[in-house]
């Protein structure tokens, strides 16, 4: 009936479909709530029979991220997914991937922590995702989907950005987005790259058996000479600067005339968009700035709002206050910046955020 394929799917299920549709070559994962549906769906869809995509259940997140390292080293489009404690186990591998400049996609369907924590939604891994999260100076590209459709679309976007910059990209979702069902339009099937295409596009770095036409490639993050290692670090930093200059993505809702602005990402931003509706109905000029890329962070759009005279910012996050630090740096003292959050897997409701806004900013003398 419809010309577009509209489906009702969970965020986690759609990650699996999107991986296949966007021509992913390999998925390596380990079960953990609340993201296990990703691998379950892939195993049910059996893409190795259709597109030739490899799907493998590893023995741990440590193994799965290192399988991603191996797969990415060959120039293939590979990915994994996990939830917070599993991503902590992957942090070593993420540092190596960033150090070796390998493109890959990692989905973190966050749950509450620290430690084993809870299996309910949280945004407590913002620091981990955006501030490196493992040893050494590096950044992941971090995308924050706020809907099932974005869960789908960002798989494609994350692969594109990962290959553009030869850098790991993370989709920072949470249990709510992963478990929620919404309508989604699936992308048309994109063909996987052939070995010949990969050999052409990635010949300067990828390993797939050294042809006579080139020198051997070595994928490594090791360099024992400090002078050379510093040059590598500077090159990485230049790459991150280019990401900051070119890849900032955000959505501004009702910000044009806003006197107050909520900054929120992912599932929180969904909830806060209802807060904006409620506030506007009461005559409060409230806007919402939703970072889509958490790294690179949209600091300029926030700074511009502060310069324009916004009276206060509320960073609404499902954590104890993490992104608020980046908002404060962007605002740079021009206006008060407050944080409102719930933790431990609890989610706030739109009216709760509105109450916090009034208490912390509007009615504060």
């Amino acid at each position, binding site marked *: 009936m419809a010309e577009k394929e*509209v489906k*009702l799917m969970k965020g986690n299920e759609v990650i699996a479909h999107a991986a296949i549709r966007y021509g992913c070559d390999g998925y390596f994962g380990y079960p953990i*709530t*609340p993201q296990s549906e990703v691998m379950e769906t892939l195993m049910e869809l059996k893409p190795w029979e259709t597109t030739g995509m490899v799907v493998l259940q590893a023995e741990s997140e440590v193994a799965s991220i290192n399988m991603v390292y191996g797969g990415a080293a060959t120039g293939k489009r590979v990915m994994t997914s996990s939830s917070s404690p599993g991503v902590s186990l992957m942090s070593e591998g993420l540092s190596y991937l960033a150090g070796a400049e390998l493109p890959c996609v990692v989905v973190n369907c966050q749950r509450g922590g620290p430690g084993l924590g809870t*299996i*309910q939604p949280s945004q407590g891994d913002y620091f981990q995702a955006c501030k490196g999260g493992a040893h050494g100076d590096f950044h992941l590209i971090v995308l924050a989907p706020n809907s099932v459709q974005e869960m789908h679309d960002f798989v494609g976007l994350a692969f594109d950005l990962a290959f553009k910059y030869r850098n790991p990209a993370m989709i920072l979702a949470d*249990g*709510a987005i992963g*478990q*929620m*069902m*919404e*309508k989604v339009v699936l992308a048309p099937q994109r063909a996987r790259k052939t070995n010949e295409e990969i050999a052409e596009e990635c010949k300067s770095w990828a390993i797939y058996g050294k042809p006579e036409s080139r020198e051997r490639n070595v994928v490594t993050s090791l360099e024992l000479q400090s002078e050379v290692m510093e040059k590598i670090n500077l090159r990485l930093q230049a790459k991150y600067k280019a990401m900051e200059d070119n890849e900032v993505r955000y959505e501004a809702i009702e910000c044009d005339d806003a006197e107050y602005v909520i900054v929120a990402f992912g*599932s929180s931003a*969904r*909830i806060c*968009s*209802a807060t*904006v*509706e409620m506030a506007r109905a009461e005559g409060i000029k409230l806007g919402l700035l939703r970072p889509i890329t958490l790294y690179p962070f949209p600091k300029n759009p926030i700074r511009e709002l502060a310069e324009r005279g916004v009276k206060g910012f509320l960073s609404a996050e499902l954590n104890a206050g993490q992104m608020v630090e980046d908002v404060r740096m962007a605002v740079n003292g021009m206006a008060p910046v407050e944080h409102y959050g719930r933790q431990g897997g609890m*989610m706030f*409701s*739109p*009216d*709760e955020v509105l109450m916090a806004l009034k208490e912390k900013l509007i009615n504060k003398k």
Partner: protein
Amino acid sequence: MKETVIIAGFGGQGVLTMGKILAYSGVMQDFEVTWMPSYGPEMRGGTANVTVVLSDKPISSPIAHEFDVAVVLNQQSMEKFEAMVKPGGVLIYDTNGITRHPVRTDISVYTIDATAECARMGQAKLFNTMILGGYLKVRPVVKMENVMEGLKHTLPERAWKMLPQNEEAIHHGGEIIKQIR
């Protein structure tokens, strides 16, 4: 049109599936929909609930603090969700196992004895579609043909032979639901 429904009961009653049928029915009617479950250990025998939002406009929050309709299928859910029905909203419940009945007078209250009816028919599997039928009788937000399409998309293909019985159960649910307040 925007309808925010919570369906709450025990894991195993088909609460999440009922929500999915409703959500898929909404998709068939070109509504925007969200289906937000409680998930985790609850799935294995404890309480389970799902919030379904149907709207003709984009849905901002999939999380709600008050509901147009609460469909309550056990006592724990009654304790939690009776208070969260909007004034003027609807509470539907199966009296089976309910020891403390709802007390609010600012909402419409319906009962549907689907547990007893399914037991009488020897068809426990039709419980959730019967409840859904009761809900749709009170809140005809989606057309029956779209409900049947939604049902078809929700059930695995091997269960399609049960579609006529489920359709019958939906109609029957509409017949046995009673307004008590």
